[in-house]
């Protein structure tokens, strides 16, 4: 057990004095063999056991500090003249450069839960962590992921507008209905990943992977999560039913039925699609053809080749959000038997497939324009290619380091979202240009 003493700007010695109080003093310490020589003040007694704290922070001129690291070492001491020889026995510490604060906190979740359990027992009532309701729902539903629904709904409506059909009120209803089903999906996913152990075993969750952690942190019970999921599904399906009655019972019910089925079966037994290596395909179909064709039908009351072709790139891109987010989760998913695509491939294969799928998505934006099934304005979606290239590099560079990957995960989501939104914009722009021309 060795500590690089020069890495720390302050060292202190602590021991229990005769009154039973811990006493500490700043100490000069230098390594010697397996231990440390300590300059011990002559007026202080030398105990048998002491604790050393090696501590460092870098103060920030405007206030506060950064660059935190410390090591606490316990051991025995032996007096030798004016100095004392310290033999370390146990050490514990943290260096924020080596272990990101988020990970450090995550690893201590069980300590927090034990503390709350003891406190609840002592005071005779349950003590739970809390968040303001809006923040709780934001976190529980993983609200920012709704952009994955907004883009395909807009592409469906945009491809209908390209064919001359557009009703903003119907678009709004479709957006709300699909979003509610998506929120239900997110919470169902949390519920079953908790039940099946995938989220429990994950100790390096990021804002984009590892679930919402709402159950793991004790912010909501699994029962409450299941109830909320059901509520979102019921509300979303109710809007879908209304749209079906209004615009076409069988086609809309069929599309919605398949969508809901995929979203539940994604993690729910017996199918557990995500656990069998087909979750990515299911997500690609659900957020691609299902949402795009459904949104398109609500507007146009017909399915079209234009909508089907437009659904392919967004399906791939949303699938890639999931795919890249699976990278930091892979060791824990494998442990929990969640055989995602990433757990089945090696790092090189994961990156190659990522590149291939991205290239396919962009090709499938350009191809329909070339064959006349999409307007030339749809090509504005290709503007995200440089960002996508940088994102691939960033994913490759940070592969395997969950917290270093966070910016790459965020960039990957931005690529999918902005490409989808630009693709939709391309469809909406064309009739406007034609009208002005």
């Amino acid at each position, binding site marked *: 057990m060795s500590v690089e003493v020069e890495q720390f*700007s*302050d060292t*202190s010695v*602590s*021991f*229990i004095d005769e*009154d*039973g*109080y*811990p*006493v*500490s*003093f*700043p*100490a000069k310490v230098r390594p010697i063999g397996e231990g440390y020589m300590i*300059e011990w*003040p*002559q*007026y202080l007694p030398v105990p048998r*056991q*002491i*604790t050393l*704290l090696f*501590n460092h*922070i870098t*103060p920030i001129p*405007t*206030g*506060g*500090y950064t660059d*935190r690291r*410390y090591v*606490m070492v*316990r051991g025995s001491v032996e007096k030798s003249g004016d100095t004392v020889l310290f033999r370390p026995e146990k050490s514990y510490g943290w260096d924020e450069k080596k272990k990101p604060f*988020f990970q450090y*906190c995550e690893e*201590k*979740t069980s*300590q*927090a839960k034990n*503390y*709350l359990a*003891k*406190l609840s027992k002592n005071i005779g009532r349950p*003590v739970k*962590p*809390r*968040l303001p309701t809006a*923040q*709780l729902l*934001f*976190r529980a539903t993983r609200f920012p992921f709704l952009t994955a629904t907004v883009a395909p709904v807009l592409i469906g409506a945009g491809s209908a507008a390209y064919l001359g059909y557009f009703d903003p009120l119907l678009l709004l209803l479709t957006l709300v209905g699909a979003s509610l089903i998506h929120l239900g999906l997110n919470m169902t996913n949390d519920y079953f990943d908790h039940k099946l152990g995938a989220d429990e075993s994950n100790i390096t969750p990021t*804002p984009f992977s590892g679930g919402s952690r709402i159950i793991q*942190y004790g*912010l909501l019970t699994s029962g409450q999560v299941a109830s909320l999921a059901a509520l979102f599904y019921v509300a979303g399906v109710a809007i879908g039913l209304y749209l079906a009655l209004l615009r076409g019972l069988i086609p809309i019910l069929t599309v919605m039925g398949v969508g809901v089925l995929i979203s539940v079966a994604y993690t729910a037994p017996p199918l557990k699609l995500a656990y069998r290596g087909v979750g990515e395909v299911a997500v690609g179909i659900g957020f691609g053809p299902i949402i795009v064709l459904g949104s398109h039908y609500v507007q146009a009351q017909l399915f079209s080749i234009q909508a089907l072709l437009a659904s392919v790139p967004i399906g791939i891109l949303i699938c890639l959000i999931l795919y890249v987010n699976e990278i930091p989760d892979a060791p824990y998913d494998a442990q929990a038997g969640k055989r995602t695509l990433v757990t089945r491939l090696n790092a090189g294969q994961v990156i190659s497939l990522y590149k291939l799928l991205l290239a396919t998505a962009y090709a499938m934006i350009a191809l329909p324009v070339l064959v006349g099934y999409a307007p030339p304005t749809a090509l504005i979606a290709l503007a995200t290619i440089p960002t996508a290239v940088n994102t691939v590099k960033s994913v490759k560079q940070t592969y395997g380091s969950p917290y270093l990957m966070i910016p790459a995960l965020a960039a990957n989501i931005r690529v999918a979202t902005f490409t989808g939104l630009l693709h939709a914009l391309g469809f909406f722009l064309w009739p406007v240009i034609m009208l002005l021309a």
Partner: protein
Amino acid sequence: MDVFEAAEKIMENALVSALSVASPKGQVSTHPMLPLYSRERKKLYFTSSILFSRKVEHIKTNPKVGVLFSGRQFINTPSYAAVHVKGDAKIYEENLNNGWMWLLDLWTRKEPYIGAYIKQRLALPLFWERIIIEVTPREILLWDDGDVSKQPRRWVR
């Protein structure tokens, strides 16, 4: 300047301190902690997240604690002294969610950006469930210029 007055200046201006508690086995656990000194109450406060609550469990068993202020670069005062406070700790855990918010003024003086982090508490919900540790000083040892080769000056309650 008397010992208590000099120690107050150090405690008010230190960015970090070392809080030592005794474990049930009689060993010392020492933790770097942000010290919040209230001049009005003449008490020293710390807030500890429930994520790092082991020290609090130790204090509940044995409230005798020691707090060391040392490291010239951590203490923003014109003259430096290393200060050790022996004290009796009390734990406040009735309202973990926001019972510690009254300490925010003292906290912000040392970490001006802390308010921005609190606004984002949904990112680390358990970190912001916090216990207050209140330390009433019982004895203070003060080493002028941090020179521990000489006997410290003392203040005893």
